[in-house]
Protein backbone atom coordinates (compact mmCIF):
# COMPACT_ATOMS: atom_id res chain seq x y z
CA UNK A 1 0.00 0.00 0.00
CA UNK A 2 1.76 3.22 -1.11
CA UNK A 3 2.18 5.86 1.55
CA UNK A 4 -0.12 8.88 1.70
CA UNK A 5 2.47 11.12 3.33
CA UNK A 6 5.48 12.62 1.58
CA UNK A 7 8.17 14.57 3.41
CA UNK A 8 10.47 16.92 1.54
CA UNK A 9 13.52 18.28 3.36
CA UNK A 10 14.67 21.61 1.97
CA UNK A 11 17.28 24.22 2.78
CA UNK A 12 14.47 26.22 4.36
CA UNK A 13 12.44 23.66 6.25
CA UNK A 14 10.57 20.37 6.10
CA UNK A 15 7.51 20.30 3.84
CA UNK A 16 4.81 17.72 4.51
CA UNK A 17 2.48 16.61 1.71
CA UNK A 18 -0.59 14.47 2.24
CA UNK A 19 -2.65 12.60 -0.29
CA UNK A 20 -6.42 12.98 -0.20
CA UNK A 21 -9.10 12.08 -2.74
CA UNK A 22 -8.18 15.35 -4.46
CA UNK A 23 -4.54 14.38 -4.83
CA UNK A 24 -1.37 15.51 -3.10
CA UNK A 25 -1.16 18.85 -1.31
CA UNK A 26 1.06 20.51 1.27
CA UNK A 27 -0.32 19.95 4.74
CA UNK A 28 2.28 21.63 6.89
CA UNK A 29 5.72 23.20 7.00
CA UNK A 30 8.00 22.22 9.87
CA UNK A 31 11.19 24.01 10.96
CA UNK A 32 10.52 26.93 8.66
CA UNK A 33 13.70 28.69 7.60
CA UNK A 34 16.01 25.95 8.83
CA UNK A 35 18.13 23.72 6.56
CA UNK A 36 17.19 20.03 6.72
CA UNK A 37 20.35 17.96 6.29
CA UNK A 38 18.92 14.52 7.05
CA UNK A 39 15.50 12.92 7.01
CA UNK A 40 14.54 9.45 8.17
CA UNK A 41 11.22 7.73 8.67
CA UNK A 42 11.84 4.69 10.82
CA UNK A 43 10.48 1.54 9.29
CA UNK A 44 9.55 -0.02 12.63
CA UNK A 45 8.74 2.81 15.03
CA UNK A 46 7.36 5.11 12.29
CA UNK A 47 9.14 7.98 14.06
CA UNK A 48 10.19 10.92 11.91
CA UNK A 49 13.79 12.00 12.37
CA UNK A 50 15.20 15.28 11.12
CA UNK A 51 18.76 16.54 11.18
CA UNK A 52 19.05 20.31 11.00
CA UNK A 53 22.13 22.19 9.84
CA UNK A 54 21.76 25.64 11.35
CA UNK A 55 24.05 28.10 9.69
CA UNK A 56 24.83 29.73 13.01
CA UNK A 57 23.97 27.32 15.78
CA UNK A 58 25.37 24.01 14.58
CA UNK A 59 23.80 20.64 13.90
CA UNK A 60 20.62 19.61 15.70
CA UNK A 61 18.56 16.44 15.80
CA UNK A 62 14.80 16.18 16.32
CA UNK A 63 12.25 13.39 16.21
CA UNK A 64 8.50 13.11 16.20
CA UNK A 65 6.61 10.05 17.39
CA UNK A 66 3.26 11.33 16.13
CA UNK A 67 3.81 12.26 12.47
CA UNK A 68 4.98 15.78 13.13
CA UNK A 69 2.37 17.00 15.58
CA UNK A 70 5.06 17.38 18.22
CA UNK A 71 8.83 17.44 17.80
CA UNK A 72 11.34 16.54 20.44
CA UNK A 73 14.99 17.68 20.31
CA UNK A 74 17.53 15.07 21.32
CA UNK A 75 21.16 15.69 22.24
CA UNK A 76 23.26 16.04 19.14
CA UNK A 77 25.87 13.31 18.63
CA UNK A 78 29.29 14.57 19.64
CA UNK A 79 32.79 13.52 18.78
CA UNK A 80 34.39 12.53 22.08
CA UNK A 81 37.40 14.31 23.51
CA UNK A 82 40.44 12.75 21.95
CA UNK A 83 38.79 11.93 18.62
CA UNK A 84 41.16 13.34 16.06
CA UNK A 85 40.54 14.06 12.41
CA UNK A 86 44.24 13.49 12.09
CA UNK A 87 46.97 13.71 14.70
CA UNK A 88 46.70 17.03 16.51
CA UNK A 89 43.42 18.09 14.92
CA UNK A 90 40.34 17.42 17.09
CA UNK A 91 37.20 16.29 15.30
CA UNK A 92 33.87 18.05 15.65
CA UNK A 93 30.51 17.40 14.06
CA UNK A 94 30.14 19.22 10.74
CA UNK A 95 26.92 17.73 9.41
CA UNK A 96 24.42 14.97 10.07
CA UNK A 97 23.99 13.17 6.74
CA UNK A 98 21.83 10.13 7.38
CA UNK A 99 20.06 7.93 9.91
CA UNK A 100 18.98 4.30 9.69
CA UNK A 101 17.11 1.99 12.03
CA UNK A 102 19.27 -0.90 13.20
CA UNK A 103 16.90 -3.64 12.11
CA UNK A 104 16.15 -7.10 13.50
CA UNK A 105 17.10 -7.82 17.07
CA UNK A 106 17.85 -4.19 17.77
CA UNK A 107 14.47 -2.47 18.23
CA UNK A 108 16.02 0.56 19.95
CA UNK A 109 19.08 0.73 17.70
CA UNK A 110 19.77 3.65 15.40
CA UNK A 111 22.76 4.33 13.15
CA UNK A 112 23.77 7.85 12.19
CA UNK A 113 26.30 8.97 9.57
CA UNK A 114 28.14 12.26 9.75
CA UNK A 115 30.79 14.52 8.36
CA UNK A 116 33.75 14.46 9.06
CA UNK A 117 33.48 10.68 8.69
CA UNK A 118 32.20 9.46 12.04
CA UNK A 119 29.56 6.74 12.30
CA UNK A 120 27.46 6.89 15.45
CA UNK A 121 25.22 4.31 17.10
CA UNK A 122 22.41 4.65 19.60
CA UNK A 123 21.04 1.72 21.57
CA UNK A 124 18.33 3.81 23.24
CA UNK A 125 16.42 4.95 20.17
CA UNK A 126 18.34 8.17 19.71
CA UNK A 127 18.43 9.48 23.26
CA UNK A 128 22.20 9.17 23.17
CA UNK A 129 24.79 8.28 20.52
CA UNK A 130 28.35 7.09 20.68
CA UNK A 131 31.04 7.17 18.03
CA UNK A 132 31.73 3.78 16.46
CA UNK A 133 35.41 3.65 17.28
CA UNK A 134 36.14 0.56 15.19
CA UNK A 135 35.39 2.44 11.99
CA UNK A 136 36.85 5.73 13.21
CA UNK A 137 40.09 3.89 13.96
CA UNK A 138 40.13 1.96 10.69
CA UNK A 139 43.65 2.41 9.27
CA UNK A 140 42.30 3.73 6.00
CA UNK A 141 40.48 6.65 7.65
CA UNK A 142 43.68 8.26 8.83
CA UNK A 143 45.15 8.12 5.33
CA UNK A 144 44.25 11.31 3.45
CA UNK A 145 44.76 9.46 0.20
CA UNK A 146 41.96 7.06 1.11
CA UNK A 147 39.40 9.10 3.09
CA UNK A 148 38.90 12.66 1.84
CA UNK A 149 36.16 15.16 1.15
CA UNK A 150 34.20 15.31 -2.10
CA UNK A 151 32.45 18.61 -2.65
CA UNK A 152 32.89 19.12 1.09
CA UNK A 153 35.94 19.75 3.21
CA UNK A 154 35.81 16.37 4.94
CA UNK A 155 34.68 12.81 4.15
CA UNK A 156 31.08 12.05 5.07
CA UNK A 157 28.96 8.95 5.61
CA UNK A 158 25.79 9.37 3.58
CA UNK A 159 24.44 5.81 3.26
CA UNK A 160 23.73 3.11 5.83
CA UNK A 161 22.21 -0.19 4.71
CA UNK A 162 21.15 -2.77 7.28
CA UNK A 163 20.53 -6.30 6.03
CA UNK A 164 16.81 -7.03 6.48
CA UNK A 165 17.37 -10.34 8.23
CA UNK A 166 20.49 -9.59 10.22
CA UNK A 167 21.03 -6.47 12.33
CA UNK A 168 24.73 -7.32 12.68
CA UNK A 169 25.21 -7.03 8.93
CA UNK A 170 25.58 -3.41 7.86
CA UNK A 171 27.04 -1.50 4.93
CA UNK A 172 28.00 2.14 4.91
CA UNK A 173 29.11 4.36 2.05
CA UNK A 174 31.51 7.27 2.40
CA UNK A 175 32.33 10.14 0.05
CA UNK A 176 35.17 9.70 -0.40
CA UNK A 177 36.41 6.35 0.79
CA UNK A 178 33.84 3.91 -0.59
CA UNK A 179 31.72 1.10 0.78
CA UNK A 180 32.51 -0.71 4.02
CA UNK A 181 30.83 -3.80 5.47
CA UNK A 182 30.50 -5.18 8.97
CA UNK A 183 29.10 -8.61 9.77
CA UNK A 184 29.62 -8.36 13.51
CA UNK A 185 27.46 -5.39 14.41
CA UNK A 186 30.19 -2.82 13.86
CA UNK A 187 33.04 -4.47 15.72
CA UNK A 188 35.08 -4.70 12.51
CA UNK A 189 34.81 -3.24 9.02
CA UNK A 190 36.13 -4.25 5.61
CA UNK A 191 36.16 -2.22 2.38
CA UNK A 192 33.90 -3.53 -0.39
CA UNK A 193 34.98 -1.62 -3.47
CA UNK A 194 36.24 -4.26 -5.87
CA UNK A 195 35.13 -3.45 -9.40
CA UNK A 196 34.48 0.23 -8.74
CA UNK A 197 36.27 2.92 -10.70
CA UNK A 198 37.82 6.06 -9.19
CA UNK A 199 38.73 7.92 -12.36
CA UNK A 200 40.08 10.86 -10.35
CA UNK A 201 42.81 8.76 -8.67
CA UNK A 202 46.18 7.68 -10.09
CA UNK A 203 45.03 4.13 -9.33
CA UNK A 204 41.34 3.97 -10.34
CA UNK A 205 41.05 0.50 -8.84
CA UNK A 206 42.29 1.46 -5.38
CA UNK A 207 40.83 -0.52 -2.49
CA UNK A 208 39.71 2.68 -0.73
CA UNK A 209 39.17 6.18 -2.12
CA UNK A 210 35.95 5.73 -4.08
CA UNK A 211 33.03 8.11 -4.32
CA UNK A 212 29.69 6.34 -4.01
CA UNK A 213 27.00 9.02 -4.08
CA UNK A 214 24.33 6.71 -2.69
CA UNK A 215 24.18 3.03 -1.71
CA UNK A 216 20.95 0.98 -1.55
CA UNK A 217 19.95 -2.68 -1.29
CA UNK A 218 16.90 -4.52 -2.55
CA UNK A 219 15.00 -5.60 0.57
CA UNK A 220 13.70 -8.83 -0.96
CA UNK A 221 17.17 -9.74 -2.22
CA UNK A 222 19.59 -7.91 0.09
CA UNK A 223 22.63 -9.40 -1.56
CA UNK A 224 21.78 -7.17 -4.53
CA UNK A 225 23.32 -3.75 -3.91
CA UNK A 226 23.16 -0.69 -6.14
CA UNK A 227 25.14 2.47 -6.07
CA UNK A 228 25.06 5.72 -7.97
CA UNK A 229 28.71 6.62 -7.98
CA UNK A 230 30.65 9.69 -9.08
CA UNK A 231 32.08 7.52 -11.84
CA UNK A 232 28.89 5.79 -13.00
CA UNK A 233 26.33 3.30 -11.78
CA UNK A 234 27.36 0.02 -10.17
CA UNK A 235 25.51 -3.10 -9.05
CA UNK A 236 26.59 -6.06 -6.98
CA UNK A 237 24.79 -9.40 -6.78
CA UNK A 238 27.01 -10.86 -4.07
CA UNK A 239 26.73 -8.39 -1.22
CA UNK A 240 29.46 -6.08 -2.43
CA UNK A 241 32.21 -8.64 -2.96
CA UNK A 242 32.31 -7.57 -6.59
CA UNK A 243 30.76 -4.57 -8.30
CA UNK A 244 29.65 -4.56 -11.93
CA UNK A 245 29.65 -1.36 -13.92
CA UNK A 246 26.10 -0.92 -15.26
CA UNK A 247 26.56 2.61 -16.53
CA UNK A 248 24.86 3.39 -19.82
CA UNK A 249 28.04 4.33 -21.66
CA UNK A 250 26.14 5.40 -24.78
CA UNK A 251 23.32 7.16 -22.95
CA UNK A 252 22.86 9.53 -20.04
CA UNK A 253 22.47 7.12 -17.14
CA UNK A 254 25.95 7.80 -15.86
CA UNK A 255 26.80 10.66 -13.54
CA UNK A 256 24.25 11.68 -10.91
CA UNK A 257 23.32 11.48 -7.27
CA UNK A 258 19.81 10.08 -6.81
CA UNK A 259 18.92 6.39 -6.88
CA UNK A 260 15.84 4.34 -6.01
CA UNK A 261 15.50 0.57 -6.09
CA UNK A 262 12.54 -1.73 -6.44
CA UNK A 263 12.41 -3.56 -3.14
CA UNK A 264 10.70 -6.60 -4.68
CA UNK A 265 12.45 -6.81 -8.04
CA UNK A 266 16.26 -6.85 -7.82
CA UNK A 267 16.51 -6.13 -11.53
CA UNK A 268 14.84 -2.72 -11.36
CA UNK A 269 16.22 0.67 -10.28
CA UNK A 270 15.81 4.34 -11.14
CA UNK A 271 18.42 7.13 -11.41
CA UNK A 272 18.18 10.80 -12.28
CA UNK A 273 21.24 11.72 -14.34
CA UNK A 274 23.06 15.04 -14.39
CA UNK A 275 25.74 16.44 -16.64
CA UNK A 276 29.03 15.56 -14.99
CA UNK A 277 30.65 17.34 -12.10
CA UNK A 278 31.86 20.18 -14.32
CA UNK A 279 28.31 21.48 -14.88
CA UNK A 280 25.84 19.71 -12.59
CA UNK A 281 22.71 20.54 -14.59
CA UNK A 282 20.07 18.36 -16.21
CA UNK A 283 21.21 16.71 -19.45
CA UNK A 284 20.25 18.94 -22.38
CA UNK A 285 18.56 21.17 -19.79
CA UNK A 286 15.75 18.61 -19.82
CA UNK A 287 14.80 16.59 -16.77
CA UNK A 288 14.88 12.83 -17.20
CA UNK A 289 14.54 9.80 -14.95
CA UNK A 290 16.15 6.58 -16.19
CA UNK A 291 14.95 3.11 -15.25
CA UNK A 292 16.46 -0.30 -15.77
CA UNK A 293 14.42 -3.47 -15.55
CA UNK A 294 17.19 -5.91 -16.36
CA UNK A 295 19.79 -5.27 -13.71
CA UNK A 296 21.39 -2.39 -15.52
CA UNK A 297 22.00 -4.05 -18.89
CA UNK A 298 19.88 -1.32 -20.48
CA UNK A 299 18.26 1.92 -19.37
CA UNK A 300 15.03 3.54 -20.54
CA UNK A 301 14.33 7.27 -20.32
CA UNK A 302 11.20 8.53 -18.56
CA UNK A 303 10.32 12.12 -19.41
CA UNK A 304 6.52 12.35 -19.43
CA UNK A 305 5.41 15.27 -17.30
CA UNK A 306 8.95 16.52 -16.65
CA UNK A 307 10.24 19.89 -17.96
CA UNK A 308 12.09 19.46 -21.24
CA UNK A 309 13.62 22.88 -21.82
CA UNK A 310 15.67 25.40 -19.87
CA UNK A 311 15.69 23.12 -16.87
CA UNK A 312 18.71 23.44 -14.60
CA UNK A 313 17.44 21.11 -11.90
CA UNK A 314 19.51 18.31 -10.51
CA UNK A 315 18.42 15.87 -7.84
CA UNK A 316 20.60 15.32 -4.80
CA UNK A 317 21.40 11.90 -3.35
CA UNK A 318 18.66 11.70 -0.74
CA UNK A 319 16.01 13.53 -2.72
CA UNK A 320 14.41 10.58 -4.55
CA UNK A 321 11.97 8.38 -2.62
CA UNK A 322 9.90 5.32 -3.42
CA UNK A 323 6.87 3.68 -1.82
CA UNK A 324 5.33 0.86 -3.81
CA UNK A 325 4.45 2.20 -7.25
CA UNK A 326 4.88 5.81 -6.16
CA UNK A 327 8.10 7.74 -6.66
CA UNK A 328 8.80 11.34 -5.76
CA UNK A 329 11.78 13.63 -5.99
CA UNK A 330 12.71 17.20 -5.21
CA UNK A 331 15.26 19.26 -7.07
CA UNK A 332 18.04 21.73 -6.48
CA UNK A 333 15.78 24.54 -7.66
CA UNK A 334 12.86 23.72 -5.41
CA UNK A 335 10.61 21.70 -7.69
CA UNK A 336 8.87 18.52 -6.52
CA UNK A 337 7.65 15.81 -8.93
CA UNK A 338 5.65 12.70 -8.15
CA UNK A 339 4.65 9.63 -10.14
CA UNK A 340 2.05 7.09 -9.12
CA UNK A 341 2.88 4.69 -11.94
CA UNK A 342 6.52 3.82 -11.34
CA UNK A 343 7.88 6.85 -13.12
CA UNK A 344 6.01 6.47 -16.42
CA UNK A 345 4.32 9.85 -15.89
CA UNK A 346 5.16 12.65 -13.48
CA UNK A 347 3.17 15.50 -11.98
CA UNK A 348 4.62 18.62 -10.42
CA UNK A 349 3.57 19.12 -6.81
CA UNK A 350 5.48 22.35 -6.15
CA UNK A 351 7.51 24.85 -8.13
CA UNK A 352 8.77 27.25 -5.54
CA UNK A 353 10.27 25.42 -2.62
CA UNK A 354 13.85 25.96 -1.52
CA UNK A 355 16.57 23.60 -2.70
CA UNK A 356 15.59 20.02 -1.84
CA UNK A 357 18.08 17.81 -0.05
CA UNK A 358 15.89 14.93 1.08
CA UNK A 359 12.66 13.12 0.29
CA UNK A 360 10.96 10.31 2.18
CA UNK A 361 7.53 8.78 2.34
CA UNK A 362 5.99 8.85 5.80
Amino acid sequence: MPSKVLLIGTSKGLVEYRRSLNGWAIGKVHFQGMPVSALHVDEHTRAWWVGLAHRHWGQKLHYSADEGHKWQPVPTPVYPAGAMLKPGKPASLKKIWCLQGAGPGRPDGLWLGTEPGGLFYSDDNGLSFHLVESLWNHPSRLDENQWFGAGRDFPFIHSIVVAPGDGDHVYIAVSCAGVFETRDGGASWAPRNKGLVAAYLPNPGAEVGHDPHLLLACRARPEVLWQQNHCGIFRSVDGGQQWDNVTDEQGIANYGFALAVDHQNPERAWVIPAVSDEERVAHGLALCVCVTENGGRSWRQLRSGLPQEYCFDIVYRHALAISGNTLAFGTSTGNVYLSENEGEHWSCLSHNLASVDAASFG
Partner: protein
Amino acid sequence: MATVSFTSALNRFFPGLKPEQVDAPTVREALEQVERRYPGIKDYLVDEQGCLRKHVNIFVEGELISDRKKLTDPIGAHADVLVFQALSGG
Protein backbone atom coordinates in the same frame (compact mmCIF):
# COMPACT_ATOMS: atom_id res chain seq x y z
CA MET B 1 28.28 41.15 38.23
CA ALA B 2 28.76 41.09 34.47
CA THR B 3 25.76 41.02 32.14
CA VAL B 4 25.43 38.56 29.27
CA SER B 5 22.94 39.56 26.54
CA PHE B 6 21.88 37.52 23.54
CA THR B 7 20.82 38.03 19.97
CA SER B 8 17.04 37.84 19.69
CA ALA B 9 17.51 35.01 17.14
CA LEU B 10 18.08 32.65 20.07
CA ASN B 11 14.62 33.36 21.49
CA ARG B 12 13.19 30.92 18.94
CA PHE B 13 14.98 28.08 20.70
CA PHE B 14 14.99 29.48 24.24
CA PRO B 15 11.77 31.50 24.52
CA GLY B 16 12.42 32.83 28.02
CA LEU B 17 15.94 34.00 27.22
CA LYS B 18 16.85 37.35 28.77
CA PRO B 19 20.05 39.17 29.82
CA GLU B 20 21.72 37.30 32.63
CA GLN B 21 23.97 38.43 35.48
CA VAL B 22 27.04 36.25 35.89
CA ASP B 23 29.97 36.22 38.25
CA ALA B 24 32.62 34.78 35.96
CA PRO B 25 36.31 35.49 35.34
CA THR B 26 36.24 34.35 31.70
CA VAL B 27 33.87 33.98 28.78
CA ARG B 28 34.02 30.21 29.16
CA GLU B 29 32.86 30.35 32.77
CA ALA B 30 30.14 32.85 31.83
CA LEU B 31 28.75 30.40 29.28
CA GLU B 32 28.85 27.61 31.87
CA GLN B 33 26.69 29.69 34.17
CA VAL B 34 24.30 30.54 31.36
CA GLU B 35 24.10 26.83 30.44
CA ARG B 36 22.96 25.99 33.98
CA ARG B 37 20.06 28.43 33.60
CA TYR B 38 19.21 27.49 29.99
CA PRO B 39 20.18 23.84 29.54
CA GLY B 40 21.30 23.16 26.00
CA ILE B 41 22.17 26.72 25.02
CA LYS B 42 25.91 26.11 25.08
CA ASP B 43 25.53 23.62 22.25
CA TYR B 44 24.17 26.47 20.13
CA LEU B 45 27.25 28.62 20.80
CA VAL B 46 30.21 26.23 20.93
CA ASP B 47 31.03 22.88 19.38
CA GLU B 48 31.79 19.68 21.29
CA GLN B 49 35.43 20.72 21.63
CA GLY B 50 34.39 23.96 23.32
CA CYS B 51 35.33 26.16 20.36
CA LEU B 52 33.07 29.08 19.48
CA ARG B 53 31.00 28.16 16.43
CA LYS B 54 32.23 29.74 13.23
CA HIS B 55 29.16 31.89 12.77
CA VAL B 56 28.78 33.06 16.36
CA ASN B 57 30.50 36.14 17.78
CA ILE B 58 30.96 37.17 21.40
CA PHE B 59 31.90 40.73 22.36
CA VAL B 60 33.23 41.82 25.77
CA GLU B 61 32.87 45.54 26.34
CA GLY B 62 32.41 46.00 22.62
CA GLU B 63 35.49 44.03 21.63
CA LEU B 64 35.36 40.73 19.79
CA ILE B 65 36.91 38.01 21.92
CA SER B 66 40.32 36.85 20.76
CA ASP B 67 40.34 33.24 22.00
CA ARG B 68 37.65 31.45 20.02
CA LYS B 69 39.07 28.03 20.89
CA LYS B 70 39.13 28.06 24.69
CA LEU B 71 37.18 31.23 25.47
CA THR B 72 39.74 32.42 28.00
CA ASP B 73 39.09 36.13 27.40
CA PRO B 74 38.69 37.79 30.81
CA ILE B 75 35.50 39.49 31.89
CA GLY B 76 35.53 42.57 34.11
CA ALA B 77 33.34 42.68 37.18
CA HIS B 78 30.70 44.84 35.52
CA ALA B 79 31.36 44.03 31.89
CA ASP B 80 28.75 43.79 29.16
CA VAL B 81 29.02 40.55 27.21
CA LEU B 82 27.10 40.28 23.93
CA VAL B 83 26.37 37.00 22.13
CA PHE B 84 25.59 37.64 18.48
CA GLN B 85 25.22 35.67 15.29
CA ALA B 86 27.96 36.53 12.83
CA LEU B 87 26.98 38.00 9.49
CA SER B 88 29.25 35.41 7.90
CA GLY B 89 26.41 32.93 8.33
CA GLY B 90 24.33 34.79 5.76
